[in-house]
């Protein structure tokens, strides 16, 4: 069975935020509930300073603390499928926020009392377009939203028996990973030792961040100056 991971190379990333914009368009961005964020900070002391750019989205952990919290609260709205993708069922989510408090990476976004669209007045909200959208985009107010590894694209590959094309064919690859102008993002099957992600992780010594929490994230980073 394939297990999908992402590798983000912070040594290549220069902070253009194409991935952030791509995610917002692909997933009908809910204002103030971003699924992909660029964190930018400075290191060093003048005149020897450097700028670091680190994008973050859901880590789709092997042992997701968000799922543990949701299960403990009794709602069981978070699941992890056979390909490692962690998803929120908006119909079961009550917006309690427990997942948001336990996630070491700050991923789950409580979307507030009203789901606003990105361009008010120019198009229907995702909720209003319910009949045309993937269930992952039928957003409900007062629930939690987060990156889905564009599961609405990946599941089409699974349904078509084309799992081996995930991360390679654009229609079956998360949109944020497609648009990077410097190829700082790679997506694929870590169970395939010859996949781009497996080779990247090995050759560039990509690692996971915040390992002390033991959630075993499925997003790896090539760090630019040390472990976080």
């Amino acid at each position, binding site marked *: 069975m394939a297990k999908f991971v992402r590798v983000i190379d912070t040594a290549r990333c220069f902070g253009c935020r194409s991935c952030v914009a791509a995610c917002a368009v692909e997933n009908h961005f809910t204002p103030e509930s*971003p699924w992909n*964020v660029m*964190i930018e*900070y*400075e*290191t060093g002391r003048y005149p020897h300073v450097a700028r*670091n750019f*680190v994008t*973050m*989205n859901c880590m789709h952990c092997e*042992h997701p*603390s968000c799922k*543990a*919290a949701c299960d*403990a*609260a009794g*709602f069981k709205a978070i699941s992890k499928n056979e390909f490692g993708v962690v998803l929120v069922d908006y119909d079961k989510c*009550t*917006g*309690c*926020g*427990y997942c*948001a*408090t*336990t*996630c*070491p*990476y*700050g*991923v789950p*976004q409580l979307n507030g009392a009203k789901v606003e669209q990105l361009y008010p007045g120019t198009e229907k909200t995702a909720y209003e377009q319910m009949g045309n959208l993937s269930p992952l985009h039928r957003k409900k107010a007062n629930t939690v939203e987060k990156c889905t590894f564009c599961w609405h694209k990946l599941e089409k590959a699974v349904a078509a028996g084309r799992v081996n094309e995930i991360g390679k064919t654009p229609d079956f690859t998360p949109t944020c990973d497609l648009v990077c102008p410097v190829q700082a993002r790679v997506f694929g099957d870590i169970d395939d030792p010859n996949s781009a992600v497996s080779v990247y992780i090995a050759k560039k010594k990509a690692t996971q*961040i*915040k390992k*002390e*929490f*033991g*959630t075993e994230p499925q997003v790896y980073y090539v760090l630019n100056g040390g472990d*976080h």
Partner: protein
Amino acid sequence: MNKLLMAIMATTFLSASAGVMAEDKPMNLRKTAEAIRAGTVKAGKDYNLGDEGRYHQIHTEILGIKCSGCHTEDAYPNDYLYLRRAEFPKRVAGEKVGAVERAKCIGCHSAGNVATAFYNMKK
């Protein structure tokens, strides 16, 4: 013995942090946590993050952790990798809410420790 040691460490961590615990609150965290899970200690059934919700009732009223035990005064450090970092500090019901560094949760909420396990769980 390992679980007992973890419980002692969690208790020590919380109580050693200056001003973290209210002085009149229970120090036997394991028994308190078990009582909360068993329902013999009432924490309410409002699952939300408000002051009166179950989350804060457990951590502040029952366990006696002060606000400063979890919340800092302000924003996250510039190099702290946390997707929701831009939210903090924020105002909730007129009160300023500072950031919470999640490492404070590990001591109690790792598998085998006193509280419900969210971290370091193995298959």
